[in-house]
C-alpha cells in the first residue's frame, strides 16, 4: 500500500478520473492500458477487468471518510474475498444459508478463510453467524 | 368478474374417519386446507367450494381416475398439504387446494417445494380450470404425461387481489389446529335454488 493512500478524501473520487495513478489491474496494468487496441491484441484479458484488494481498500477509505462505516467494512471484506475463486465464494454463501451447515462446517469455512485466504474479517462474519445460528436453531442437524 | 349464480350449491364435508393411505393405483387424493368448506365457502373470486370439488371430481372421473378427499388441519402451507395428500394417495398423486383457490398438483416422490403443476394465481382459477386440473391429475395417476393446464396471467391481479389474498391467507392460518389430525371426508353437495 502506498503511503498517500491513507489520506484519500472525497476529492480523490472518482479514482478513475482523479487518481488513475493509484489504480492497477490484478496483472499490474495501469487503467490507461485498458484500451480497445489492447483488447484486440489480446494483451487485455478478463483477469484485467477485476478490481484489486488495494483498490477496494481505497474505496472503503473514501466511504469511511464521509461517514459510511459499514460500506467501508464491506469493502474490506470484499478486498479479502478477491482471492477466493468464484465457485468457492458461491459455495461459502450457500453454506451460510439457514439450516445448511453444522457448527463444525461453519468453523471449517472460517478457518479456511483465515488460513488459506488471510480473510480474517470474513472469518469473523462466519463465526458470528455460527454463534447466532446456534442460538436461533438455524444450524444443520449434526448426525450425518 | 363472476357471473351471478342463480342456483347455488352448498358443500358439506362429512367426516368418515382418519385420513389413511389408499391402495387403488389410479387414485387421486384431493387435499383441502383447514378453512376449506368450513368456515369459508368460496374462493377469492367467489367460485363456490362446492363447484371446485364438483369440477375436480368430474375432471378425475372423465379421465377414468378415482378420487378420495382429505382435509388437513395442521398446516395451511399449500406445498405441505399437497405433499401430505400425495403420500396418502394410492397412485402418489394429489391435488392440494387452499380455500382461496390456489392449487397445486403434487407427486409423492417429489421434494415438498417442487410440484407437477402449480396454479399460484387463485383469482384466475375458474370452474373450467379446476376441471382441467382434475383431468390432468387422473392422467398423472395412471402414469401418463398430460399437457400441462395452460397457465393464465393477469397484470392487474395484484392491485385487485393481492391484499384480499393476504387477508384470506391470514384467516386460513387462524384455522390451523395442531391438535387435529387429517381426516377423510365425503362431499355432500346440495343444490339450493
Amino acid at each position: 500500500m502506498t503511503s498517500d493512500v491513507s489520506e484519500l478524501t472525497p476529492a480523490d473520487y472518482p479514482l478513475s478520473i482523479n487518481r488513475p495513478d493509484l489504480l492497477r489491474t490484478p496483472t499490474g496494468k495501469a487503467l490507461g492500458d485498458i484500451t480497445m487496441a489492447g483488447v484486440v491484441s489480446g494483451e487485455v484479458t478478463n483477469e484485467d477487468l477485476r478490481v484489486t484488494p488495494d483498490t477496494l481498500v481505497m474505496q472503503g477509505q473514501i466511504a469511511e471518510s464521509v461517514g459510511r462505516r459499514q460500506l467501508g467494512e464491506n469493502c474490506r471484506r470484499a478486498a479479502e474475498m478477491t482471492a477466493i475463486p468464484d465457485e468457492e465464494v458461491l459455495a461459502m454463501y450457500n453454506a451460510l444459508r439457514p439450516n445448511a451447515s453444522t457448527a463444525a462446517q461453519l468453523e471449517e469455512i472460517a478457518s479456511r478463510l483465515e488460513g488459506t485466504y488471510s480473510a480474517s474479517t470474513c472469518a469473523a462474519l462466519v463465526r458470528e453467524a455460527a454463534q447466532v445460528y446456534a442460538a436461533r436453531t438455524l444450524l444443520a442437524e449434526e448426525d450425518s | 368478474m363472476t357471473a351471478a349464480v342463480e342456483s347455488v350449491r352448498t358443500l358439506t364435508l362429512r367426516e368418515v374417519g382418519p385420513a389413511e393411505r389408499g391402495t387403488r393405483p389410479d387414485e387421486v387424493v384431493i387435499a383441502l386446507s383447514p378453512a376449506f368448506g368450513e368456515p369459508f365457502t368460496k374462493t377469492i373470486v367467489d367460485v363456490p367450494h362446492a363447484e371446485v370439488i364438483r369440477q375436480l371430481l368430474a375432471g378425475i372421473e372423465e379421465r377414468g381416475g378415482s378420487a378420495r378427499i382429505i382435509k388437513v388441519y395442521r398446516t395451511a402451507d399449500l406445498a405441505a398439504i399437497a405433499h401430505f395428500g400425495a403420500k396418502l394417495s394410492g397412485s402418489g398423486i394429489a391435488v392440494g387446494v387452499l380455500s382461496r383457490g390456489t392449487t397445486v398438483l403434487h407427486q409423492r416422490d417429489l421434494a415438498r417445494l417442487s410440484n407437477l403443476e402449480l396454479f399460484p394465481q387463485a383469482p384466475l382459477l375458474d370452474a373450467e380450470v379446476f376441471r382441467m386440473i382434475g383431468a390432468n391429475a387422473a392422467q398423472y395417476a395412471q402414469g401418463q404425461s398430460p399437457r400441462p393446464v395452460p397457465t393464465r396471467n393477469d397484470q392487474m391481479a395484484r392491485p385487485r387481489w393481492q391484499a384480499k389474498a393476504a387477508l384470506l391467507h391470514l384467516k386460513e392460518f387462524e384455522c390451523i389446529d395442531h391438535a387435529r389430525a387429517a381426516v377423510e371426508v365425503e362431499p355432500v353437495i346440495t343444490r339450493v335454488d
Partner: protein
Amino acid sequence: MTAVAPRSESAVHTSKRTAILEDRPVNLDGFVEEWPEKGLVAMESDYDPQPSVRVEDGRIVELDGRTRDAFDFMDTYIADHAIDVETCEAAVATPSVEIARMLVDPRTSRDEIVALGRGLTPAKILDVVKLMNVVEIMMGIQKTRSRRTPANQAHSTSAKDNPIQVAADAAEAAVRGFAELETTLGVLRYAPLVAIGLQVGGQTGRGGVLTQCALEEATELDLGMRGITAYAETISIYGTESVFVDGDDTPWSKAFLASAYASRGIKMRFTSGTGSEVQMGNAEGRSMLYLEIRCILMAKGAGVQGLQNGSISCIGVPGAVPGGIRAVAAENLVASWMDLECASGNDQSFSHSPMRRTSRLLPQMLPGTDFVCSGYSGVPNKDNMFAGSNLDTEDYDDWNVIQRDMQVDGGLRHVREDVILQVRNKAARAMQAVFAELDLPAITDEEVEAATYADSSDDYPDRDVLADLEGAKSVMDRGITGLDLVKVLERTGFGDVAENYLQVLRQRVSGDLLQTAAIFTGDFVPLAAINDANDYAGPGTGYRLSGERWEELKKLRHVTSAENPEEEVV
C-alpha cells in the same frame, strides 16, 4: 364468519351516478380493512414496540423493549452492525418531534440529520416518521436523497424472451435517459441471450447505461462475474426472522453476498418493501413500516451501498390499506435518511385508475430520488416479465409533460422519432452481428426491420425457441464473457458500441461504481453521493432543473412554435 356485506349486485335500484362510479377503474382495485394484530396495517399500530436502547460494555443490550437474550436475529444484526453504539442512547433520547422537524427544516443539514440517524433504533425511526404527513415526508426525501441528481431505471423484458426485442427496447430506453436497465425472464434458461441483448442494446442507446438481469442469486452473480451484466438488485431481505428464513437466507448470508459482489467490482443493492411479511403470513404482529425499517437497518449494517424499496412486488398490500401509500413514501424516506441509495419502487402494476397511478408516483417524482422508478416499464406492460409496472411505454409522453409542467427532473426526455428508430435499428443489427459471430441462431433482416418499428413482442417474427435455448446454454458452456462481446462488436463494425461496453467493464478496475448511488454520465464520469452529494439546504439550493437540461425537458412531441404559430417546434 366473514363480516363483509355482499356487494350491491342484489340491490335493485342504483342511481345513474352510482352506476357510473361503479364502472370507474378505481373500483377494480382491492381495498381491505386493517387487521393490526396480524400486521395488516401500514404504519400506525398499537402492536409495534416502543423505542428503547441500552448499552453495556460497548454493546447494545436492549433494543426496542427487548433485552439481548430475547433478540431474534434481526435484532442481533441491527444492534451489532447498523446502530452506532457511541451515539445511540443520546439519539434515542432526543424527542421524536424534534427529529421529525430536523428532517423537514432546511436549516438542518443533511449531514447533521444523517449523523443523528446513525444512532436510532427501528421503533424510534418509526416514531419519528409517524409524525410526518406526506408533504413533510417528501421534504425529507428531497433533503436526504443521497445523490444530488435524480435518475431513473427501466425494465426491458419480452413476453417471448426475445433478445432482439430486449435489445431494441433497451436502446430506446437508454436514449430516452434511463441510467439503469433491468431485465428478467419468462423461461430462465434464456437468461444469457436476453442479458446480452440488454447490454448490447443499452450501450447502443447511450454509453454508460448500467444493466442487470434479475435471477436467483447464484446465476445473477455468475452473469455479473462474466461481465455480461453490470450490477445486481434482486437480493431480497425481509423484516422478520421467520420470513427471512423462508427466503432461505439470513442477514449474515446476505452480508456475505454483498461483499462477494463488491469483491468482483460489481455494483449491488438489496431489495425489500412493506407488505412482504404479512403477505407471507409472518408479520409477527408488527406494522408493515416497522418491519421495513428493520430491513433498511439490516441493509445499512451489511454495508451494501443501496436498497430498492417502496413495497415493490407487494404494493397491492399497502396499496389496499388506509395510509398505505404514505407508508410507502416513508420507507423511501427512511432508506434515504439512513444514507443508502434508494431505488424507490413505482415499478409494479399498482392500480386500474390512471389518477391513482399518478398520485402514487408523486411522492418520489416531485422530491426526486436516486431512481424514481426501480423499473419503469420500457416495454408495453403485457411484455413486462416483472408482472407489469406502474408506468410503461404508453406513458412516456405523459411523463415528459409532467416533468415540464412541474419543472422536475424525472430522468427522462423527449427524443425525436428519427433518433429512436436509428438506435433501435442499430441495436438489432449489433445483435445480428454478435449472434452470427458467436454461432448463435441467426437473426434475420426481417427481425431487424421488425425491431426498428415494433411496439410489442407481437410485432416480431417468432424465434426458434429450442435453438435459442441451445445457444443460451452454449454461451454459458463456452464461458463467453463481456470482453468476448466487446471483441465481437469491434470486429463487426460496431466500434462505438464496443468502446462503450469496454468503458463499463473498465470501471470494475477502479471500483468507482461501488460508492453510494453511483451511475455514469454520458461521458463515463461516475456520479455518486460523493462527487455529486446532495446539498439541498432549502429554496435555491440543491438540484435545480435549469440550463441545458431544462431546455431539453421543454421539448415535447407537439409544441407550437412561438416564432411561427403555424408550425411546431422540432
